[in-house]
């Protein structure tokens, strides 16, 4: 479907030699942003995604597009397929049917989890998952965007800029004092923040954030809302959340999932008054 526009984006044939020579001259691989072609204004394309577990359809021909730089909230009752959708995007679950593209060129269904992660899709899990036996600092270091191959890791040392980056993120997530504490000793809310910090270290283009404010105090979730809003724009942010107040505070666009399909999509106020949405939520 998007093959056509891909073709159109190429420079005319006569210019092609110049293009390739200049890229040879700079002697580098195409950057991540070049690989992920978002010229059309969209960064994620999910079409007709169907996933079934033992006959139960977790996703039923789900079609969803995420715009570059947008902040999208996904809501829906339990079992609506929110987490499965994230599993499909990050390569954990392969759909039975459908297509998932990242930018115009990258077919997510052909890539493994680490490949998808290094192309710039970062994920925060519903249950905060940090490395309990590592310090806060090491958690951030592990997540940092870097050459993540085996031999490269053996001799790797942090550069001054990387130290600064870690310090900067520690500041944002408010864990400066806990930098050498083991992640396992943090409170639930702090773990949530640490995981968000790990997401920032990866410097992803797309952030998939699953229930970021579960277990946070009101104040903490306010600052989370603020952080996510700042991130949108430079990054595309997809948030799955139950907390309606939180959704209201950040959402520009909301997608409601129900039984593996998109039930409604639009601005929060509009969706809130949608008859079908009310029925699903009240009928629960």
């Amino acid at each position: 479907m998007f093959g056509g526009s891909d073709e159109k984006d190429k420079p005319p044939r006569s210019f092609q030699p110049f293009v390739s020579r200049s890229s040879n001259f700079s002697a580098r691989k195409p950057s991540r942003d070049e690989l992920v072609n978002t010229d059309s204004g969209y960064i994620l394309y999910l079409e007709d995604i169907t996933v079934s577990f033992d006959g139960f359809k977790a996703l039923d021909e789900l079609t969803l597009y995420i715009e570059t730089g947008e902040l999208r909230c996904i809501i829906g009752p339990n079992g609506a397929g929110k987490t499965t959708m994230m599993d499909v995007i990050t390569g954990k679950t392969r759909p039975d049917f459908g297509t998932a593209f990242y930018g115009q060129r990258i077919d997510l269904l052909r890539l493994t989890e680490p490949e998808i992660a290094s192309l710039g899709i970062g994920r925060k899990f519903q249950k905060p998952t940090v490395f309990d036996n590592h310090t806060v600092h090491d958690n951030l270091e592990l997540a940092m965007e870097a050459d993540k191959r085996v031999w490269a890791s053996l001799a790797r040392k942090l550069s001054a800029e990387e130290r600064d980056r870690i310090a900067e993120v520690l500041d944002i997530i408010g864990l400066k004092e806990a930098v050498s504490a083991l992640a396992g000793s943090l409170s639930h809310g702090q773990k949530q923040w640490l995981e968000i910090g790990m997401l920032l270290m990866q410097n992803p283009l797309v952030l998939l954030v699953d229930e970021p404010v579960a277990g946070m105090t009101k104040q903490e979730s306010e600052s989370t809302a603020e952080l996510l809003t700042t991130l949108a724009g430079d990054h595309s942010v997809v948030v799955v959340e139950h907390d309606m107040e939180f959704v209201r505070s950040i959402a520009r666009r909301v997608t409601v999932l129900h039984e593996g399909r998109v039930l409604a999509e639009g601005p929060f106020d509009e969706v809130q008054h949608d008859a079908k949405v009310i029925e699903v939520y009240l009928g629960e």
Partner: protein
Amino acid sequence: MLLGRLLKQDWGPTILLGILGVLCVVVPVANLLIPEDSVFHVSTYTVTLLGKYLCFALLAMALDLVWGYCGVLSLGHGAFFALGGYAMGMYLMRQIGTRGVYGHPELPDFMVFLNWEELPWYWFGFDAFWFAMLMVVLVPGLLALVFGWLAFRSRVTGVYLSIMTQALTYALMLAFFRNEMGFGGNNGLTDFKDILGASLQSDVTRVVLFVVSAIALASTYLFCRFVVTSKLGRVVTAVRDADDRTRFIGYRVENYKVWIFTVSAVLAGIAGALYVPQVGIINPSEFQPLNSIELVVWVAVGGRGTLYGAALGAVLVNFAKTWLTSEYPEVWLFALGGLFILVTVALPKGVVGLLRNLLGKET
């Protein structure tokens, strides 16, 4: 600065390296210079026994690297140890030359006995020491690489992986039992005469082998510390604790597992190569699944994930084994089983964990 990084843990590293350093001086002196009738004399039997313990300690450390730090419970590490041992054994067999019972210049006795006409192709090159040493590293390493690549790529983990490694060592045992394999069948390789021209029966050679084992153990320890304190080490422990999470931040988990598994197998092979000239025999019983399980007990007793704890556990358990099998031979297996249960229930962090608790908080 690097040394500081390697030793910075608690007192364990310093004590381990200190003991090995002292042994390297005291044992040769006590064996070679102090007269036999003195109480301070250490018999050659004891030297060899200690050397054997050091090889086991090295083997335990290799397992701890992959089990303690990467969470891969290999129940087949004895196989890599035995393969390294066989490579060394083949070199030692070729050194016998015409001194064998049949006096054949090229063929080992068992081949003459089987009426073989010429040396099988896979025995070529083993008359050269450097080639044999290369094989000590390459054969276990390649086997681990292929096995690990197949297993980890298919995401075989946990108990399934343990069972597969157990099957691997069992299959190798059955194969090496066959005479047609050309490794001496159930008798294995023995009757070694000398190594690099030095008689294996002489006290000096025994002492040298002991010192080499001690140096190998110390170097292995420093190498393993280098690995586990590098970023690679932190990734590997991350894999142990949450492998899915590690994948989602962009690490190819299976490559890390294959790497650490292969390195561990190479170390186990080196331990086997040091072991064989000291005990004077290598046979298929080294592949027994029980050996690999015993090895896991050593590491568990000493304290998983500390490296020096594994060495300590290997020495403690083997000392107990030497003592029990001579005093009460029938009790040993029960004692081993009991020990494993005791450690699992009462000392989840092994002797090292216990000592740390007694000495108050450290790391």
